[in-house]
């Protein structure tokens, strides 16, 4: 074996690592290992001076392999790969040893943590010896975009793309665009009439030459990968569209919580009890009556219906507080003499102008009452004194057990993930959280991308959201998509599976386990083959292959086994040192 020239860099991460790991000792010890030309430690390897150090060393000492002992590769692998590339080295000649999250963060004994760090770095050194240069793979990007869901989020995305002259397919399940927003009369916090805004938005979408709206339709199939998707869309009247696109935006929106589940509120039992959705319809018609057709005198608005309670949904639906205040204002205008009761848990009016809405609403003779959302919910029962119902609960701010008479009760039903979320997630290869909302790639730094490249989630299908936030997200996804379209190409995963045709026995087991449909069978040669562009390098097929014909690039058996050997060798060595 030719001589390897390895450079090892141990990061202090300020004190994050250095406090628990003796980084100087680690680098000193690593210098002794075979193949290691130099080992250094530095305060912040990821900072400019840290990276410069690596680049200079590569050139000066002719290093061909680099080990960085720092944080998780998820955080800075890209940073150091770029540094290698800048120094003229193939970026895959890097191996990171995670001595932060997997070591210094989780230990309290400095000696033990230092020993662990040594083992981890030694393992990385053994591994990097077997690294091979890999070539970046670049694919072209199809300029069209598939948008699933014709609500405000989906339409905003389509329009933003259209303004840039890019085509999109806007697939809507129902027979009209607009989604939940189309049901609204006013928006919060400024109580503007949105009916025209939304219908104008719809008109703009319909008029755009770059947007193909397909109503009453659902996406049946999606295949491919970033830049090169194709799919089938089917309408209820059995029309099928076969489309090609480079990116996908999932904007399937929300469904409202089923008020019937709330046993204390008697949604099906009392004609006085309606949901916020039903109220929006009433107020849009300009007539507020209960289901008996009576104009109400006492109106109760109950917040958090189905939210923030472990018997229903644990999460907060984010928008209901503001909607409830909006309703109070609408009711005050329509019925100036009615008594309005706003029953809330925490008043979550956090957005711009929302606290101000809360203040101005409180000036309009509305009675705010607080109940314990996590305990037994208020009980709605028939009023013995009057025609309507009466709501009984313990009011928290006064500590009093009280009764609120009502001939109209509006339940502020929360948002839930759409029932078709599961099928959309399978279709587009994205994951859902326990509440059925789609999971973004990173909650903070990548709130609209997903772990599947080229697929974005925007709007309330990612988590409950108001209109402006949904629009923001929709446009954010468009920024990312435009960037790929403008560049025309995109880099895709290189750590794909490889099948050694000589060993493959043609059992096709790999095809059945591949979650991405990347493996197929070459009947002529009686072997399985990998479509590299579809393969995500997850390694499932490699472990499943009974004849050991499949390996994953950059994760070969050799590489992994040497890493384990390195780890154990150091462990033994250190143990022996101790016993002596």
């Amino acid at each position, binding site marked *: 074996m030719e001589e390897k020239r390895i450079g090892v860099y141990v990061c202090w991460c*300020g*004190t*994050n690592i250095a*406090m628990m790991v003796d980084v100087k000792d680690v680098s000193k010890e690593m210098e002794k290992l075979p193949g290691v030309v130099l080992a250094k430690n530095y*305060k*912040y390897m*990821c*900072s*400019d001076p840290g*990276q410069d150090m690596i680049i200079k060393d590569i050139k000066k000492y002719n290093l061909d392999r680099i080990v960085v002992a720092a944080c998780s590769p998820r*955080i*800075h692998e*890209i*940073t150091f790969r770029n540094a290698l590339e800048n120094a003229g080295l193939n970026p895959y000649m890097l191996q990171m040893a995670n001595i932060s999250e997997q070591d210094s963060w989780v230990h309290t004994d400095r000696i033990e943590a230092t020993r662990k760090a040594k083992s981890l770095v030694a393992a990385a050194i053994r591994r990097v010896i077997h690294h091979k240069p890999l070539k970046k793979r670049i694919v072209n990007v199809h300029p069209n975009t598939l948008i699933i869901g014709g609500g405000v989020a989906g339409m905003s995305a389509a329009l*933003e*793309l259209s*303004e*840039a002259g*890019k085509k999109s397919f806007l697939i809507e399940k129902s027979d009209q665009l607009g989604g939940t927003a189309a049901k609204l009369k006013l*928006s919060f916090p400024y109580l*503007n009439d949105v009916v025209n*805004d939304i219908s104008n938005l719809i008109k703009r979408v319909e008029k755009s*030459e*770059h947007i193909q709206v397909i109503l009453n339709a659902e996406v049946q199939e999606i295949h491919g990968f970033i830049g090169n998707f194709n799919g089938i869309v089917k309408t209820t009247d059995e029309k099928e569209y076969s489309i090609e696109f480079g990116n996908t935006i999932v904007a399937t929106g929300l469904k409202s919580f089923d008020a019937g589940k709330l046993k204390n509120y008697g949604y099906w039992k009392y004609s006085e009890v309606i949901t916020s959705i039903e109220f929006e319809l009433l107020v849009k018609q300009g007539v507020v009556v209960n289901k008996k057709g009576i104009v109400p005198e006492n109106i109760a608005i109950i917040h958090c219906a189905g939210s*923030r309670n472990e018997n229903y949904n*644990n*999460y907060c639906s*984010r928008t209901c507080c503001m909607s409830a205040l909006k309703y109070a204002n609408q009711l005050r205008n329509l019925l100036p003499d009615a008594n309005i009761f706003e029953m809330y848990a*925490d008043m*979550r*009016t*956090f957005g*711009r102008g*929302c*606290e101000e809405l809360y203040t101005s609403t409180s000036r309009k003779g509305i009675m705010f009452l607080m109940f314990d959302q996590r305990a037994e919910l208020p009980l709605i029962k028939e009023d013995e004194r009057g025609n309507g119902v009466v709501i009984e609960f313990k009011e*928290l701010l006064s*500590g009093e057990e009280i009764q609120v008479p009502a001939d109209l009760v509006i339940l502020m039903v929360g948002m839930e993930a759409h029932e078709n979320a599961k099928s959309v997630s399978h279709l587009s290869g994205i994951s859902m959280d326990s509440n059925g909302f789609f999971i973004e790639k*990173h*909650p*903070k*730094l*990548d*709130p*609209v991308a997903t772990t599947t490249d080229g697929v974005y989630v925007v709007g309330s299908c990612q*988590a409950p959201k108001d*209109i*402006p*936030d949904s*629009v*923001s*997200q929709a*446009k*954010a*996804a*468009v*920024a*990312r998509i*435009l*960037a790929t379209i*403008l560049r025309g190409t995109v880099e895709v995963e290189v750590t794909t599976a490889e099948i050694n045709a000589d060993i493959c026995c043609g059992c096709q087991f790999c095809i059945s386990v591949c979650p991405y449909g990347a493996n197929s069978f070459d009947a002529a040669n009686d072997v399985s083959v990998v479509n590299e562009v579809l393969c995500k390098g997850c390694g499932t097929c490699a472990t499943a292959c009974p004849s050991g014909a499949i390996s994953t690039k950059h994760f070969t058996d050799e590489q992994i086994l040497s890493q384990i050997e390195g780890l154990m060798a150091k462990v033994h060595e250190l143990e022996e040192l101790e016993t002596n």
Partner: protein
Amino acid sequence: MNSSSENGNEFHQKVHPDTLVIGAGIAGIQASLEIANAGYKVYLVEKSGTIGGHMAMFDKTFPTLDCAACILTPKMVEVGQHSRIDLLTCSEVTEVNGYPGAFKVKIHKKARFVDQQLCIGCGSCAAKCPGKAPSEFDSGTALRKAIYIPFPQAVPNKYLIDPESCLYMQTDGKKCGVCVKFCPVNDCIDLHAMDEELNIEVGNIVIATGFKIFDAKKVARFGYGKFPNVLTSLELERLINAGGPTEGKITFRTKDKKGNWVFKPDGGAPDSVAIIHCVGSRDENCNAYCSKVCCMYSLKLAHLVKEKLPATAVYEYFIDMRAFGKGYEEFYQRIKKEGVHMIRGKTAKIEEIKGSLKLRSEDILNNRIIEQLADMVILAVGLEPSDGVKQLSEMIGVEIDANGWYKELDSLLDPVGTARQGVTIAGVCQGPKDIPDTVAQASAAAARVLQSIESLKEVEFI
């Protein structure tokens, strides 16, 4: 969509492909990267000596508790290395002329006094420098030298000199100058470097000027600035951070030998910490608006205090707990289970009694007054528009609201556009926002920019 020229008074102009981004916090960074990664040039103008903004100062982020620096620094590094991002630190926009699609912008670039190409970051200068000032990055919890790198992961990671605290500059060159003597690189430090004026032309402007925190001294009854262990949330954030003055230990502010109040690692740990919500927010006497993030960051800080000091009692005094985002309510429930005491009722006043702080609050749900003794009090200060917003808004021709937040074109359907074509807003400068919303908005602003350049849309003018 297509520009029409029915009106004879219109004229058309192709959009200049370069973009100016003002402010290099997470919003400005995100917007710049989105645009640059799409292949267009960005001028990123930042007032201070480094990019990163407030997010770089935080320890962890809610509700996932990932390390703020860990998730931010890769982006900062990317900005620093990006061939299409022209990073202008210590710079401010002083003039904006021209029109949408072709703005002519004058930038005042203050001297850093240290050559960015030559500086090797050895630190010899700072080691000898006698000038000291409170570190902006550490929110004043620590001192920095007059010649300094704002923080170890700063981008650019080069020294700069703060003329306000430099002895040489304060004495008109009569004293000091040791940094030049000890600098191993010739001509690296130039104490007579002049500010520069830069003229650029851009097609779009993204405003991402962020925020400053509410001045807690304005609420005199909390005794901030009077009682040494009444801290702002940002100060605690720096204490908790391993890179802060106490190496991640939560310690008291103590007097050093010279009698200055300082934080140091052996300052002693508090047995009880109280966190007061809504300081400067939701208050007609200060800012009437809700600052949106304080409830959540307070819960996060409570968690971090508990994590560092498990035996320490933590009390949160709140009005309404606004845990609204994805995973936020769940986080709130988790913190409650961790044993943090939640008291509905805002503290009214703080007194110092024998070195201990006494908070008087109403425990509304239990119908009683609590006179709580705490070793340390954290004020969850709200957000305010950063300084200079008014001048900038007038310069660019974008409206701000009564509170000083930038006004978007349409509060409902266009949260990033402004009434001035070619100008978009991103992040907290439009109103308090958490990181995910800021990032989404920044990307959305970038989309608007890209879309205008890409379509080579001719800007319509009347």
